[in-house]
């Protein structure tokens, strides 16, 4: 079996083969999704706990449906005000486990927390986003979308635009794309580019035209002004005038360029409204693939769930 880990935490840690295996499984799940009766029995009798320490609508919905399509029991917990209550994620994990949870899908505002949880529970943990570190399933759905359009990753030029330093989706995408052989360029204000990223094989630009030139794929990220300290970010107006993806910005990209965004979109800031409705934009595919990828992850991990550490 190509993926035999207990948990799914990060694309930084796993191999290209493992990623490819998950992407292939996601294709099977897409078939399940396309059926009239969207139900597969793989997680019957298993419990999936969705443990989110941050507000979320889309991701939660996507995970919840994925688990339901696979016939799991689902509980959804949102813990708020993390700093006020002093229970570590570790203790929370134990509680869930004692109640019979087989999977914990966790989103947490601190980097590395889901790994910490995974190391301390027997249940399978899926990282649904940890701080500014990674959101690996979000990246997988991007990768499925790219693969469907382009067939292969080798030699593809992918331009990622936005707040690279504070975007966990970007970080996961960078690791995933590099492993699969794509060329990765990033563009954003220098205050939003993480230190030393160029040493990891990423090309860094401060203007989108250079980054997008000859690109096969353009990904633009949601600008989260809350995660960024004030002086890193000037204003939405200023940002959009330099980093908004519109028809003009795509001029020098490859003719068959595709445009992606993890959503929710700040219309007219990260991307122009006209472009969103263009066929080059694959936001809808991304959303569908998201459910398939999450089903694939649950399915793959179900072989390991409840295993002794």
């Amino acid at each position, binding site marked *: 079996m190509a993926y035999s880990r207990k948990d799914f935490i990060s694309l930084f840690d796993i191999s290209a083969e493992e990623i490819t295996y998950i992407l292939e499984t996601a294709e099977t799940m897409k078939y399940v999704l396309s059926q009239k009766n969207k139900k597969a029995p793989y997680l019957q009798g298993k419990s999936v706990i969705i443990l989110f320490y941050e507000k979320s609508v889309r991701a939660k919905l996507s995970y919840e449906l994925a688990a339901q399509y696979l016939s799991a029991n689902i509980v959804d917990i949102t813990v708020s005000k993390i700093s006020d209550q002093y229970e570590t994620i570790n203790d929370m994990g134990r509680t869930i486990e004692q109640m019979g949870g087989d999977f914990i899908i966790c989103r947490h505002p*601190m980097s*590395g927390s889901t790994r910490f949880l995974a190391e301390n529970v027997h249940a399978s943990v899926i990282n649904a986003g940890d701080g500014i570190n990674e959101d690996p399933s979000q990246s997988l759905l991007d990768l499925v979308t790219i693969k469907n359009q382009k067939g292969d990753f080798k030699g593809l030029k992918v331009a990622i635009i936005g707040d690279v330093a504070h975007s966990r989706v970007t970080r996961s995408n960078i690791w995933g794309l590099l492993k699969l052989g794509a060329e990765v360029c990033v563009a954003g204000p220098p205050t939003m580019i993480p230190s030393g990223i160029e040493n990891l094989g990423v090309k860094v630009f401060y203007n989108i035209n250079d980054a997008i030139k000859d690109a096969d794929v353009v990904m633009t990220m949601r600008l989260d002004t809350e995660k960024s300290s004030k002086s890193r970010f000037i204003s939405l107006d200023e940002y959009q005038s330099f980093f908004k993806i519109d028809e003009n910005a795509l001029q020098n990209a490859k003719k068959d360029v595709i445009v992606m965004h993890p959503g929710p979109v700040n219309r007219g800031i990260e991307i122009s409204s006209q472009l969103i409705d263009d066929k080059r934009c694959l936001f809808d595919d991304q959303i569908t693939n998201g459910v398939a990828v999450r089903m694939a992850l649950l399915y793959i991990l179900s072989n390991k769930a409840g295993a002794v550490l």
Partner: protein
Amino acid sequence: MTILIKNASIVSKDFNVDEKFDIYIKDSVIEDIAYDINTEAEEVIDANGFLVMPGCIDMYSKICESGYENKNNIITISQSATSGGYTTIISAPNSQPVIDNKTVVEYVFKKTIEQADVNIFPYGSMTIGCEGTEVAEIGEMIKAGAIGLSDGAYSILDTELMRNIFLYSKMFDVPVITFCEDRNLSRNGVVNDGIMATKMGLIGIPNVAEDIIVSRNLLLAKSTEARIHITHITTKGAVDLIRQGKEDGINVTADTCAHYFTLSEKALEGYNTFAKVSPPLRTEEDIQAIIEGLKDGTIDAIATGHTPASIERKITEFDNAAFGISSLEVSFPVSYTELVEKGILSVNEFIDKMSYNPSKILGLNKKGCIKKGNDADIIIVDTKKEFEIQGKNFFSRAKYSPYDNKKVKGKIVVTIVKNKVFHFN
């Protein structure tokens, strides 16, 4: 009490390590050092095969007595210190209550006399509550025995205030101990700003956060002609600035800690909270610069930076985890192995960084070298036997270490301090 050390190969000023002496100690004072002493003594120690050195002086420990007893108290820190080769430790002022007035200074001395097996001297906080806003009663604290002024690992960002403290300190012969980190640049940071921060998705603290305050404080010390000691240096930039400062005649001394030249940010791999320290562990390039600084004398001393955090505060989410390291028991062997075993410093140069230089900087004139009439603060070290560091065996209540399983040399076998002899196996 009388103690006689036989066959001592002494590593200290004016001694040749190849010669063997006997050392006679009476009531905590070195009474005599000669080739062959036959005076009767209550305890006779044969130091044959070992090295005899002055006890180490730690320029910066958090003793955590008063307020933070759950982390450590004077008794456990004494055990940690003696087993780690330290006979004198200087307490950082940021305990609870903060050492910012003469009453707390007197309290530390009283507790030390009653309970501590080692010498403990306090630094006085430069500002009330270590808050960096209002000057504390510096003179009163020094009169009560504080041996230096410290910002308690909380850089004073108000430049006028810092300048006035430098100026005022000239009334007394004490160093101004500054920890250099610009909190505007380190805010929310938990690790070094570099490749590891990028890989792990953690907020970084750039080198320049340290360099900028080192630079400012050097300029202030130069213009005020005050005595400055820069503690916990971690960056190449800081080493370069201090080297330049010394060349320019600024009255500056500096220390670093063992973890800043033996561990890089790579120790954080897997979100290892045991390696989460303040300032953060830096890069190989910085380590090389620190080692170069130790070698050429830019860095005068090695402090432990002992800042034990309870295990509960370490086994938690990385961002929530406390900064801190339990280093009193490992600083000596780790530094010895890195510096002396690798031939970077001679054993004499090494003990200067651990004992003699701190004694000079802090004005502890009866300590720091083995000499007739000096305090009998002595350690006996087995430098041949290799052993493994295991945090779980620490005396400290913080029983963890980023050095777990590391093989080192420089085992403390005997510590003599305050008229007592401690043996360690």
